[in-house]
């Protein structure tokens, strides 16, 4: 599990770097086409928004695994070791329940609806189900990370 995790982490890191770089290049290209060609790009706006959904949601899962999201530990630092441990497990379980229900179930339902109903984006003509698929994906990742963090 540990080895798998390292591999997954490395892979996500690469994807994140790629997403952010693509966003920058995409916006620079948008400025370029507006000033130096007679035909301003019509897809860059939409593409960067979709890249950001991916960056934000996938990155959120990665950061969750690294426990880098902002949280308050004032109460925890005042408690005994065992109690602190119990609370940490409680928070982990809550997060797993949430990820399973909202991100995996809700997210998958969203992907399913947009897929079955043939919903395409206006300018790239991309299936919205692809854009939304990052939600259940991140949900699964968070559950995996929470398990790793508690089982070691």
């Amino acid at each position, binding site marked *: 599990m540990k080895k798998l995790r390292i591999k997954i982490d490395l892979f996500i890191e690469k994807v994140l770097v790629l997403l952010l770089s693509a966003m920058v290049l995409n916006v620079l290209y948008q400025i370029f086409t507006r000033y130096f060609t007679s035909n*301003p790009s019509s897809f860059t*706006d939409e593409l960067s928004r979709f890249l950001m959904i991916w960056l934000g949601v996938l990155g959120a899962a990665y950061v969750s695994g690294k426990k880098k999201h902002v949280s308050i530990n004032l109460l925890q630092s005042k408690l005994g070791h065992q109690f602190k441990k119990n609370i940490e497990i409680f928070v982990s379980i809550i997060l797993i329940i949430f990820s399973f229900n909202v991100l995996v179930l809700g997210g998958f339902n969203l992907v399913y609806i947009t897929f079955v*109903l*043939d*919903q395409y984006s206006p*300018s790239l*003509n991309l299936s919205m189900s692809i854009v939304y698929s990052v939600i259940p994906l991140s949900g699964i990742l968070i559950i995996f990370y929470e398990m790793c963090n508690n089982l070691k």
Partner: protein
Amino acid sequence: CDQNNDIKLIRIGHGLDTNHSVHKAMIMVNNQLLRLSDGKMKLEIYPNQQLGSERECLELLQIGSLDLTKVSAAVLENFAPKVKVFGLPYLFENKEHYFKVLDGPIGKELLEEGEKYLFKGLGYYDSGSRSFYSREKKIEKPSDLNGLKIRVQESNTAFEMIRSLGGSPTPISWGELYTSLQQGVVDAAENNTPSFYLSKHYEVCKYYIVDEHNMIPDVILSSTNLWNNLTINERKWLQEAVNLSIPFQRELWIKSEEESMRAIINSGVEIIYPDKDLFKKASLTMYDKLKKDTEINDLIARIKDEKIKN
């Protein structure tokens, strides 16, 4: 709390201000619904994009967390492709032709088109005809659009239409448009008169060009989730209430068009009435491109046919 359970609460979200004819018409729907159902059905209205943009509200309908919404047919085309026919330039000869199609069998057919996509159309509100407005450049004929950066809605049909007329379609969100026009990120935009006025875009544009290139109706939609959960009577009441609000909204719309036009003229914007035939001719290339799409082509022919029948 117990009596609440007897009242069917229906939630409707839209993106417009509470002074807009659409919001006022929805208030009327609520009043009619209360009357027809003897107080058993009630509308809760969420204006001002409180529950999201038109596209998001439509998704909420499909998800089943929102009951009703109002969207422009331009937004609808990404969900129900046939509806893109409304985005075509100079599809309708005049307003009479337009309403005749909307209120006739073709309009009804398109309302039902949504059922495959988990929503059901209940009726059309008027949203006037769309025209160009530009910050600096006087536009009198299609060639004046050459090289102009023109803001369009998020719709492929709108992109194609601007291209067919010779402009460069540029996507800018509606919220960013005021400053974009002011600072020259785009040269022109297009919309109906009340939107031009209410968005204050007239403050940063010199010309309003009444070329009336298309008429895209607003559509009232119900989620099939709601519709399937209503009894036959409840459906009748809801449809009836919406039907009653339609002439009311269309009347209000005309009034708001007139008021906006007056206000725009008073503010010093120059109104240009170009030769519409020139624009109509230029836009024909767009119809040529659609020749392959038999479904749409068929629809176009039937719509044109409505005019001749009488």
